[in-house]
């Protein structure tokens, strides 16, 4: 019942995966709310006549905490979508996106953009190598032209930018 393994049949809404796991979300919110309440108290609540910096955050955090507590008991489990094989692909895609940001900061836009598009189109989009290559090259160049040349956005300089004379 409480395992996170995907249901054997590709059912659209396997109920088994979510009997207890779904409580994680309200628990996270609860932790966030309580944490914020404590931090707001340290900032200084002040009085209603002279509100301190922490007063408003404390009010809001109390609301968050309150709703999270109720959700812990009343949250309809049917709202939760199951984790599917597609989920793993999304996580891979996100890792790729993070890698893109890291590379972007060091070697500029064009090369990481090309790599991101190529990997995404080939592996996540399921395009053929040829299609992915063509689109990735075209996409990286066109976006470079739009952002750097037309809009004048100062992307970090990289090896290709020197070649393009930007």
């Amino acid at each position: 019942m409480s395992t996170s393994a995907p249901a054997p049949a590709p059912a659209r809404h396997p109920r088994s995966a979510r009997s207890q796991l779904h409580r994680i979300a309200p628990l996270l919110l609860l932790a966030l709310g309580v944490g914020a309440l404590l931090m707001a108290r340290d900032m200084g609540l002040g009085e209603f006549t002279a509100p301190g910096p922490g007063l408003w955050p404390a009010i809001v955090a109390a609301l968050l905490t309150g709703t999270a507590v109720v959700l812990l008991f009343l949250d309809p489990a049917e709202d939760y979508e199951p984790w599917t094989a597609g989920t793993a692909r999304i996580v891979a895609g996100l890792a790729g996106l993070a890698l893109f940001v890291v590379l972007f900061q060091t070697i500029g836009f064009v090369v990481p953009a090309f790599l991101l598009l190529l990997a995404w189109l080939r592996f996540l989009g399921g395009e053929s190598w040829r299609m992915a290559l063509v689109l990735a090259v075209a996409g990286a160049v066109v976006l470079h032209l739009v952002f750097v040349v037309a809009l004048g956005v100062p992307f970090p300089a990289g090896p290709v930018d020197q070649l393009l004379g930007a």
Partner: protein
Amino acid sequence: MTVGIFDGIAQGFAVALDPINLLYVFAGVLIGTVIGVLPGLGPTATIALLLPLTYTIEPATAVILLAGIYYGSMYGGTITSVLLRLPGEAASVVTTFDGYQMAKQGRAGPALGIAAVGSFVGGILSVLGLMLLAPPLADLAVSFGPPEYVALTALGILLVTYLGSGSPLKSLSMAALGLLLATMGQDPITGTTRFTFGSVALFDGLDFVAVAMGLFGVGEILHSLERTEKVQAVTKKIKHIWPTRKDFKDSSGAIARGSVLGFVIGVLPGGGGVISSLASYALEKRRAKDPSRFGKGAIEGVAGPETANNASSTSAFIPLLTLGIPANVVLALIFGALLVQGITPGPQLITEEPEIFWGVIASMVVGNVMLLALNIPLVGVFVQLLRVRAGILAAFALLVTMAGVFSVSNDSFDMWVVLVFGVIGWLMKKTGFEPGPLVLAFVLGEIMERAFRQSMLLSGGSLGIFVTRPLSGGLLAVMAAVVILSLVMARRRRAAFRQVDPEDEFGREDGTGPVEGEPGLSAEPATGRNARHTSDSTDSDAASTPGER
């Protein structure tokens, strides 16, 4: 006053007919139609993705562009609803009921035609209402003090949480989270840094554009990518798009009622889109001599809701332009775009920035004319857009998002914010938490806090100030009414949404049946919820045609 309105309208058209603005209206409605057609990229995601672009253009032009995308998507969403039973955006779900049936009977052309005509009529009538209603409302709102703003923002957030499509409690929780996130950075009055964790990048708080792009742009793209639906290409040629005289006669009443209904619902915070089209469908069905025709290709069932959703997407600008309160999430994004430009929408907008106020209104007339002209002859072209594969679209949209958010303040920190909020947005979608209330609350958070603290200073620390002033007290009374009504409404709304897609409901039961047996008897935490679930299922079983209410 009337003279002022006519002057305003004249000034508005001067702004809207400026060649650059004409170009942006055209771009807006075209982009709107395109993304309305493309499943997986809705108006919220698109507007979020295009926010960085608005920095580089004039404020009036920016709002003209974003507004065009919004109502343009209402037209575009119809096309896929009718032809493929795939609503391109939420508001056109209702159109699938009768629109798709019409298409199956070979009447796709008239369905699309009457939807375009209805949307046009609804849009234009709504603009007229906006012109007449907005200035007096703004006059009234000028007298609002801080307590009224606290009440108004609270009411706006509350209504969005209650009228949205998710569970009200979860939405309220997200609104609280949005308000909390808005407090990051410097205290607006004392300048103390809050929740910055010693990071200099957080001193100015989280950037609204990055948060919105992450939650809506990246989050929605990821979420739609997970559901790998195959979209079949439409090869059949669509004929007879211009409706016949009989079609017009059959649907004229529905269009007239849809315009009024859509306008009224759009003005209410939390209205717009889905609610107005659902309400119009219900009204038409109740009025019909033979309600059994509905769900089997009744043209009124297309004309009414399509008119209503476009009328409501126009009138939803009234609270934003006069009170500074966004009525729904799309308008929260437009609100944010204006804030970024250094303009706080509110009662003063009409006198201080008349070119924005009247220019946007006039551009809607121009945009609706363009949409009618685009839609009737070019439906066949738009349909071809469905050939674009979701994977390609997602890859490019994500890359543009990343480059775009960097361009806002040339800071790669914002890219990480987008990424983090993208993950959060995707997880929220997976767990049934709506990102809408979070973003709306995030936008309103600072205004609300400032107004609250000013009220406290005004009243000498007494919370009574919110109740004793007639306007804020009245607004709070409305809020109380909403909370009470919502207990009744929640039930009915759940039933309505359940009926929106009966197939999905059946699919769910089929999927779960073998695993756990009776869906209503599964081990869920709340027994009340179980009872509700079963009663809803029986409801939709009994009423086999969708949209009973």
